[in-house]
């Protein structure tokens, strides 16, 4: 597998949100606006890449039976580091993402990649895989956030396009499911056309 395809497969062929449909909790919970989606995506990208690198580097030393707890500690460490850094330097974004930042620990995409890819591949490949999957997740969350923000509050990235209120339901949880459903259909239709 070429190095480039390691990155691109995460964006299209194995997109964590639209194809694997993993990590639905942050996907549905944080995408009330494009900015929140982007922030959550980048936070996950960071954790995913770092944990993939470390897991891949140390997996040879870890006995099989304590594999999962070891991975979880590694992931939790990076999430906590991220939490401190965000609190210190982007308090605004941290306040809006709130509980979802610590919840990255239990995001099944992160543990899934550590277990299924990083523990069996080289450090370099694992880093690229983390970046690829992370980008795919970021892209999906940003698009979902844009759609929900556009329909729900008639703006994109906080810029008001039309005066007045949007269709409120898209900001709320049911709207997240509706928007995600239609995006899933669109994405898979496009994917089928490409391949």
């Amino acid at each position, binding site marked *: 597998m070429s190095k480039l395809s390691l990155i691109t497969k995460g964006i299209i062929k194995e997109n964590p949100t639209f194809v694997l449909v993993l990590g639905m909790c942050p996907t549905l919970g944080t995408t009330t606006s494009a900015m929140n989606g982007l922030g959550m995506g980048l936070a996950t990208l960071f954790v995913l890449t770092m944990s993939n690198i470390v897991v891949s580097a140390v997996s040879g030393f870890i*006995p*099989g039976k304590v594999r999962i707890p070891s991975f979880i*500690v590694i992931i*939790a460490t990076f999430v906590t580091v991220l939490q*401190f850094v965000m609190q*210190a330097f982007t*308090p605004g974004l941290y306040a809006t993402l709130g509980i979802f930042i610590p919840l990255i620990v239990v995001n099944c995409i992160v543990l899934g990649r550590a277990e299924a890819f990083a523990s069996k591949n080289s450090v370099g490949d694992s880093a690229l895989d983390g970046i690829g999957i992370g980008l795919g997740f970021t892209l999906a969350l940003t698009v979902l956030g844009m759609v929900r923000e556009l329909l729900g509050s008639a703006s994109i990235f906080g810029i008001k396009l039309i005066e007045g209120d*949007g269709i409120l339901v898209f900001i709320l949880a049911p709207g997240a499911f509706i928007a995600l459903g239609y995006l899933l259909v669109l994405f898979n239709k496009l994917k089928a056309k490409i391949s």
Partner: protein
Amino acid sequence: MAKVSSLKNMVMTLLAICFVASALLAGVYAITKEPIDAAQIAKTNYAIAKVVPKFDNDPSADMFAKEIDGKSFNVYPAKQGGAIVGYAIETFSTRGFGGRIILMVGFNADGTINNTAVLSHTETPGLGDKMVEGKSNFSVQFKGKNPADFKLIVKKDGGDVDAITASTISSRAFCDAVSKAYDVYKICAKDVEKKEVPNE
């Protein structure tokens, strides 16, 4: 790939990983502690400056706490040339639709509300979050009102406050927090009077 597990190597591995992880976290915590505190203070100071009239002291340094019904409220007095021109009172309500809301309410020295600012809330985006200034005119109606003759209850319940459409619960919580702040203000005002009497 994975090594054969024995009790010894499992314990050692987990111990090593946890040790490195906690060392790393301790390091990051030490580095980010200062910026985190600074960000917190900056946020509070910004809210204070927004809700009280012009001042020349450091309200965070003069902060004192007042207790009502066992709950402690932080009061940030704003002074101009040593005389108190207003109070910023950090108040809260647990009656929000999504949980706790925390407000900073600024009073002028005469007890009228100068301005309000939402410090944190978990209300529904698009409905209850309209209590945040700039998202709707809800919070503007409190400006310049004196709770002594402006009933801090939504109109539906017989008060004077126009509730946010479809967010009566959030509006009630906002009023609840503001009236708590007013109770704190009354205590502060009384304390000032007491202090002034012996001087005369």
